[in-house]
């Protein structure tokens, strides 16, 4: 009889025990899991702001009719168009500014060899004495 008992416990009841225990373990893990404490996915707080040139930032498209704006990119002494190392514009905007200045000069809106003296007191967008990149002048 005792042999039969041990057989029964080992081979028939044992799997059910296992089932029971595993189900208990599952229940206990579910009780512990609490997602409020987990690390949260956020964007990099130390990410620097994207550098933009002044015309891109203010969303300005240079136009040859707006010669007052264009004259700010011109030397007051010689009327020369300042380069990228001085104006600090991106490639596209610098090319646009240069093209529009040429057009304005050609249309006689803007002088070639000097800057209109009524625009001398306009705010300075950049300092020609301190270029952002070194140059050979």
């Amino acid at each position, binding site marked *: 009889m005792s042999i039969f008992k041990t057989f029964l416990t080992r081979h028939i009841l044992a799997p059910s025990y296992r089932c029971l225990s595993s189900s208990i373990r599952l229940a206990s893990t579910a009780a512990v899991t609490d997602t409020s404490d987990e690390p949260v996915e956020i964007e990099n707080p130390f990410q620097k702001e994207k550098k933009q040139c002044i015309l*891109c930032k203010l969303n300005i498209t240079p136009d040859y009719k707006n010669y007052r704006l264009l004259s700010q990119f011109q030397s007051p002494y010689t009327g020369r168009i300042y380069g990228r190392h001085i104006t600090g514009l991106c490639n596209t905007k610098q090319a646009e500014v240069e093209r529009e200045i040429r057009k304005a000069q050609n249309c*006689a809106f803007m002088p070639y060899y000097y800057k209109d003296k009524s625009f001398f007191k306009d705010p300075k967008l950049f300092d020609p004495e301190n270029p952002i990149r070194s140059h050979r002048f």
Partner: protein
Amino acid sequence: MPTYELALMLRTMPKPELKSTLKRVATAVFDRGGIIRNIENLGFRAMPYKTSAHGLVHREANYFLFKIDSPTQAVVDLKEEYSRDVDIVRQRVFKVTDSDQHSCTLEAELLPPAYRKEVQKMIEIGKTQVNRFTYKFKYNSGLDYYPFQK
């Protein structure tokens, strides 16, 4: 029909004459199947440089801006006709292009040279070329003499 901007400088003249000149300019556009979208008067002001036109030197001009839609072939005709008009000191035609959005590339341009795309491309091209500073002529060329000046 593409849109054009017609920048006109008209000589100094009294208002009635100016009116008739503008009418002449406008009818020239209409005659060639064009339409006028907009006329802007940019005022009478001193020109930044003196201009001689039709045997006269002009230092002031009436600035006008026409926005026109006209057939492409008509533009040359228009310019030719306006160049013959004695009241027009100077005229320029520009095609109007709508600006396409672009994102600022300033940050990529301010990187040190080795990180810039265009510089990397140049280096790649340079690798495919013969470096003329380190290139040495090989004497096993099949010639029994040195072909260049020593």
